[in-house]
């Protein structure tokens, strides 16, 4: 009973930025239909089998052995063989479309999963790589190829509303095609256990109309804004040594251990979805990253004077 009622109860709550039941991509939509068909079939089979078992227990009539044997042949072999064959043909027929990694000659997204963030680079057909982190934006319409690898441990890249997941494995490059169908603000997560902050390895996903996407990509390709480069925050940033790990294009900071921060203020969330992207968010993370994200590589800067933290936080937030 519970099993039939729950989907109805759940219906209102199915929507959300991270719901496989609320698809915004071609692959997620295919899989949802498959799920609905299988769920209906599963409920029917469950009711039949369990109903039969309960009936068999309660009934006072007994079945002759020959008819009992027919039940075994019919229910135990014919029924599952037919059901499974249909399911297998129907399901596997979806695979070529789902496994299509998208065109190799268009825009490609290079994703490197790292404990506990996502290094993202857009490789344009002319060979440039535009670096960003923890935020994936995609154009609505075309299928975009994502190339996944890992810098440390096994992770798994999953945007439930767009498509199934794909593992990021050190030493390997896996490909995944993503095809958004509508403009939406979504969320992705790491689905393979990767260490203490596995729960905090989310990323924002924004699907945009192609023109808007192109404009965003051009903005990301640019160096940091001149106003930001002239700010005292820049000097504080460089003197604190942040450039050893982080890059801010347009400044001498060119570290590659941590995320590229050139446009960090423009992202939707901070530190893999842990904190809001505002000045207090930056300040909290700078002071004690491991409180918000256990096991993260970044050291804490609680030792800095409050004023310096404020300056840094304000400046980082201004990197739009």
């Amino acid at each position, binding site marked *: 009973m519970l099993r039939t009622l729950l989907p109805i109860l759940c219906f209102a709550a199915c929507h959300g930025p991270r719901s496989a039941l609320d698809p915004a991509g071609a692959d997620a939509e295919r899989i949802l239909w498959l799920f609905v068909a299988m769920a209906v079939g599963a409920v029917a089979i469950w009711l039949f089998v369990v109903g039969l078992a309960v009936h068999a227990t309660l009934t006072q009539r007994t079945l002759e052995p020959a008819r009992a044997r027919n039940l075994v042949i019919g229910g*135990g072999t014919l029924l599952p063989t037919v059901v499974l064959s249909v399911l*297998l043909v129907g399901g596997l027929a979806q695979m070529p479309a789902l*496994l299509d990694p998208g065109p190799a000659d268009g825009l490609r997204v290079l994703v490197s999963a790292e404990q506990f963030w996502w290094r993202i680079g857009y490789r344009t057909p002319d060979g440039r790589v535009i670096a960003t982190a923890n935020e994936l934006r995609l154009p609505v319409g075309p299928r975009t190829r994502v190339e996944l690898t890992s810098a440390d441990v096994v992770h798994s890249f999953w945007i439930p509303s767009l498509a199934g997941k794909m593992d990021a494995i050190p030493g390997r490059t896996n490909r995944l095609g993503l095809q958004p169908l509508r403009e939406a603000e979504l969320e992705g997560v790491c689905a*393979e256990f990767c260490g203490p902050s596995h729960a905090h390895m989310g990323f924002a996903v924004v699907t945009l109309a192609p023109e808007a996407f192109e404009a965003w990509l051009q903005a990301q390709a640019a160096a940091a804004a001149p106003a930001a480069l002239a700010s005292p925050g820049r000097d504080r940033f460089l003197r604190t040594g942040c450039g050893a790990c982080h890059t801010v294009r347009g400044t001498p900071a060119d570290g590659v251990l941590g995320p590229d921060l050139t446009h960090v203020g423009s992202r939707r969330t901070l530190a893999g979805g842990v904190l809001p992207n505002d000045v207090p968010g930056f300040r909290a993370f700078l002071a004690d990253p491991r409180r918000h994200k256990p096991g993260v590589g970044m050291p804490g800067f609680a030792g800095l004077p409050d004023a310096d933290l404020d300056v840094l936080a304000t400046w980082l937030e201004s990197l739009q």
Partner: protein
Amino acid sequence: MTGPDLPADPEPLAEAPPAEVQRAQRRRLLDVWRTPTGWRYWSAVNNSVVGLWYTATAFVFFLFAGVLALAMRLQLAVPGNDLLTAEQYDQFFTMHGTIMMFLFAVPVFEAFSILVLPEMLGARDLPFPRLSAYGYWCYLIGGVFVCGSLFFGAAPNGGWFMYPPLVTRYSEGYGTEIWLLGLSFIEVASIAAAVELLVGILRCRPPGMRIHMIPLYAWYILVVAVMILFAFPPLIAGDLLMELETAFDWPFFDASRGGDPLLWQHLFWIFGHPEVYIVFLPSIALVATMVPTFAKTPMVGYTWVVLSAIGTGFVSFGLWVHHMFTTGLPGISLALFSAASQAIAIPTGVQIFCFVATLLAGRVQLAVPMLFVLGGLSTFVIGGLTGVMVALVPFDLQAHDTYFVVGHLHSVLIGGTIFPVVGAFYYFFPLVDGKHLSERLGRIAFWLMLVGFNVAFVPMHFTGLLGMQRRVYTYDPDTAVAALNLVSTGGAFVLAAGIAVFVVDVLRPKGRQPLSARNPWGAGGLEWLGEMPDQPWGVRSIPEIDGRYPLWDQPHLVRDVDEGRFYLPDAEEGLRETLLTSPVDATPDQVQRVAGPTFLTHLAALGTGGLFILSTFHLWVPAVISGVLGGVAVLVWLWTGTAHLPARDDKDVGLGLTLPTYVSGPSSVGWWAMLIAMLGDLTAYAGLVFGYFFYWTVDEGFPPLDQPDPTVRWALGAGALAATAWGGTWAAVHLNRADRGAAFHGALLGGVAAAGACCWVLVAGIDALGADPTAHVYPAIIWARVIWTVALLAVGVVMQLYARRAARRAG
């Protein structure tokens, strides 16, 4: 042996032996089989005692892992909770899975089987009682060690699947090695029990119980024991590789030096998927035992059930990749493994419909065990159907590693394992304790567990589809899953309350409660010959069997067995004896003397445990010393327990039958056990060879040009020496049979010398090349194979020298 060669179906003695003879027989049997008292109680090796300890210990581990689960559910009850830290949560979920799989699910079936299988087979004990005891003590020591690490905050924290490189290069502390070595140790115990059960089922059946009359329980255990033999060794090979990587930096799973993290995933799931069926089939075996009893009719489709169990066992080895659908494997592999994963639903469906048909064919008595059977069935079918869903690649791409899978696997394991096991407790309890568990408490426990389970786990399917991935210690407040998580936590506590009621029922004092009637459920199996309370001898006299349900088929069976009208009604020589029969037709062919109480098994287990546990902390010298002491304890145990020649060559076992008391070669149980153990060993070695070819397949640059390459001459030379060592042993066997003493000793020593030379060639040859196992995976995998081969040769040398010494003693 069929047709006219077989003696006519023997019948029990027409007249009961005189009462005073019966009394004397009972007294002598009791003297021989009596369980030691006082502190010596712990030296017992008899199946009824060891099986009881084993079952109780497994259940304690179950409750411990259950408490960990409740702590995790509390942490997840509300978003952003800080009851547990990330580190604690990671250790908890790792240990929950590890304990449930390695310390509960597999051991509890071995425990149950050690306890009841000999009774079902009308045997006095299993053929190697000390091996069971050794396995139990290994299990206890290893289990306490692995669980204990949690109290020092040092427990493994990389998940029960331990994927590298997270656990090899990105974790601190001893957790990884505790997991690897602690569990390898326990796996040794599991394999020991599998050998014991296999030989027990093949050779310890009562006369007349031909292969098509074996109780279904025994059929299932036969299948499962074979599965353990082929599933655990690849994991042990994987454990060895990972230990070498963790402790010595050999790069098996390090992509930067030619290794590949996916090799571990393959080796783990080649074990891990059959493991699911290793856990599930024995519980279905319990269902297959209970259903005919409560339907009061034989199982419909016995042959179908047996073939399905065998089919499930086979197919389960071809499914492991469905745990790896998202690792980027080629589409054709995915499709094949997807189809195979779906196909396993067919034998499972056959078994379920056979049970339902049996219920339909009879009038069902709805006692507590039957309630648990039905509850388990309804729950397991949920898991089976969601299993078909996740076996389909497209859907798995979404569901994999989410709470959907958590819901799925707990439906399978709680429905397929916990419900039948608890039902079996209610069913078998009178046989063990002489008293019934409470019908009322049983019903309360059942309903709490059924409702609690569904409230806890059915919502998880939606939690997963709403985007909650597995193994997260917390989640965002703004996600839609918070309400579902709170419901799941509530359900988990209701489930736990049901289990608590059951535990209270088991533990409550039953002093004034009357003894159960004999065969209280009116079952047809031999185990219900047991008196209330049961006697330690297992069976008063070993009956001749005419059908699948002897207590239903043979009207005077209980009387005839009790009055000693069958085989081996006495213990004239004061030795523990049971009857061995042929594997297929169960014709009696030997009287097996089985060993009695000892503390040597404890020493052997402590020594073996020391080897594994001290290695965890890299205390290599004490570890090796401990391992040697354990080995010596095993040798002393064999020397004092099995190397004696019997005083008499044969013995009158009753009903006019005289059987040998000592045999060698393929008709001895030792030969079978050795063969089975060697199959397991071969499988582990095949795991290492699989590793070599895996690198060769996935990496075009393997073997690398810049690494030293062993020569063909080296391989051929070592191979020739190993063949010579084998030839020496083979010759020694034949010379021994021909009674040519001097030539026998010469051949044996020649074999030992050749084995030693082979070890030297293997190690010196590869060492001279300068092959550095930390430089690249190629020298590392060759070194690993050399180490394994040398270890095997060393064991062979010890065996040859032991045989030589035993031959000397025999003269």
